[in-house]
């Protein structure tokens, strides 16, 4: 017997949706037979706006592209401009950048942890993890002057040097986070019901991953060892010691475990950075921003963000303003075509969990 199909609008106003987007679901019983993503609710036309802004003015605006984790955007634009210009970045700035990126990765994972278990109905984890993430935001506030939008990394280095005693604070926070991780393990990752909810759901196998252009933790979750930090080390990642965890299975659980292991790696990277950080300059000054002409050229740069590979294609025509800044966030691939594909056959209970585990982040899909 064929069940009657119902149309279900999952979003944009829906507590289970990540951000502001909509998935139009056709369901038969509890099973999804067709999914159609609708994005564009957060379209602000960044790429158009950047055509109207000078290079320097573009820096405060790019970080808004991805709300939970703004730093890879700044890093990407900065690196792209530096590549076009051939500008050197002081060693210290590179270390600081890595620290910022890893801190933001940790923060993003804490937020993800909250989202993943919150959508599963385990409301204690978001309360903890978002609260613990706040300690990282405190660090950001002290370092960059902003909690969410840091506007800290820019062409030539970083905006300000570390404040006094900052390294100790970072280490202290890292110790705290490390001491908290076992508690999360007990509550979330060891949780029998959570495992039941996550295992075998939203499976992406290796071939599918390659076919659909999956990146980041979902890719590593299906056993492919690919991480921009290793394959094309930017900043000082080649001088740091870390491993890229991979899991077989390609389900929500594998992706969750990849992220869980990467949290430990991030903590270790941050500790190494603090230990190895050299002194000296932190900023190789660009010309006065009102008259900063970037020579003609193009650059494609990518950064490993918490959700995967973040790519920027930047073209300069030699003027004050960028010709084109094209942003491809990981969610651009995950959140539209892949999601539509993977949701077919899934249970409606799992839609939110799948979206979370793929790291769907609407603001970076539509920019």
């Amino acid at each position: 017997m064929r069940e009657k199909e119902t149309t279900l609008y999952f979003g944009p106003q829906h507590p289970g949706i990540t951000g502001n987007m909509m998935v139009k679901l056709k369901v038969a019983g509890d099973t999804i037979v067709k999914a159609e993503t609708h994005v564009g609710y957060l379209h602000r036309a960044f790429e158009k706006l950047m055509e109207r802004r000078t290079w320097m003015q573009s820096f405060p605006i790019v970080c808004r592209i991805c709300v939970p984790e703004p730093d890879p955007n700044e890093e990407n634009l900065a690196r792209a401009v530096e590549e076009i210009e051939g500008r050197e970045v002081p060693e210290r700035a590179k270390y600081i950048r890595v620290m910022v990126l890893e801190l933001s990765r940790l923060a993003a994972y804490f937020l993800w942890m909250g989202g993943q278990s919150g959508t599963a109905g385990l409301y204690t984890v978001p309360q903890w993890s978002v609260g613990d993430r706040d300690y990282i935001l405190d660090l950001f506030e002290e370092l960059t002057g902003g909690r969410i939008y840091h506007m800290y990394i820019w062409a030539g280095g970083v905006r300000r040097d570390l404040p006094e005693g900052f390294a100790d604070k970072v280490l202290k926070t890292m110790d705290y986070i490390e001491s908290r991780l076992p508690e999360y393990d007990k509550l979330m990752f060891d949780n029998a019901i959570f495992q039941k909810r996550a295992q075998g759901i939203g499976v992406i196998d290796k071939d599918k991953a390659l076919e659909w252009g999956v990146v980041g933790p979902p890719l590593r979750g299906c056993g492919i060892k690919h991480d921009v930090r290793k394959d094309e080390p930017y900043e000082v990642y080649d001088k740091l010691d870390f491993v890229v965890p991979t899991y077989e299975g390609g389900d929500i659980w594998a992706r969750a475990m990849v992220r869980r292991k990467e949290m430990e790696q991030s903590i270790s990277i941050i500790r190494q950075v603090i230990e190895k950080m050299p002194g000296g300059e932190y900023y190789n000054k660009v010309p006065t921003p009102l008259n900063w002409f970037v020579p003609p050229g193009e650059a494609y740069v990518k950064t490993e963000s918490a959700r995967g590979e973040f790519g920027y294609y930047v073209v300069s025509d030699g003027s004050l303003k960028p010709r084109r800044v094209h942003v491809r966030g990981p969610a651009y691939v995950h959140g539209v075509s892949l999601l539509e594909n993977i949701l077919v056959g899934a249970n409606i209970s799992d839609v939110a969990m799948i979206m979370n585990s793929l790291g769907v982040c609407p603001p970076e899909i539509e920019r």
Partner: protein
Amino acid sequence: MDKDFINENKTIEEIKNTFHSAEAKLQRKNRIIVKLRSDLIPPFLSYAKNYLSFDHLAHFSCVDWIEDNQFELVYILYSYEKNIIAIVKTRIDREKAEFVTVKHLWRQAETFEREFHEMYGINFTGNNRLTEFILEDWDDIPPMRRDFDTMQYSKENFYTRPGREDAQDVREVITKKSGEKIPDFAKEFSVRKLK
């Protein structure tokens, strides 16, 4: 020096041997740039995917070169095996913006093509999902085209809060005081014209 780029140079060599009209060059480590005629793009991409192991379409971009009346389509391919990124570029006519889809090679290309259809008005033949994507009920020219003025559009369509009309221009205030008269040909060089 060449030793560092052994993989890259080999790939460039292979490309040049297969596609004689391709302009392939090394950009930097891990990056090669390939420029091609637009009709060679579909065979090239399928060749790159199947024979050069560029199995990941990392990025697909479009640049509006309004001066040349052309759109530049940029396919950025990545090979997990070789760890090389190939930036494949071609130009198409801006007036009659049409191209073929590559969604049969990489599934995510569909999303990019939908976006460029909406934002640049490029028609990708073979892609049957060129529907409304990001915008809703858009009736102006495609917004990412360079001749679309977002400031103008914003001014015409949206209401801005009043109360800021008393703003002065520093240069004007100074010239008013000193009696300086800026000739018309110099006015465009006032830095205030940044925006």
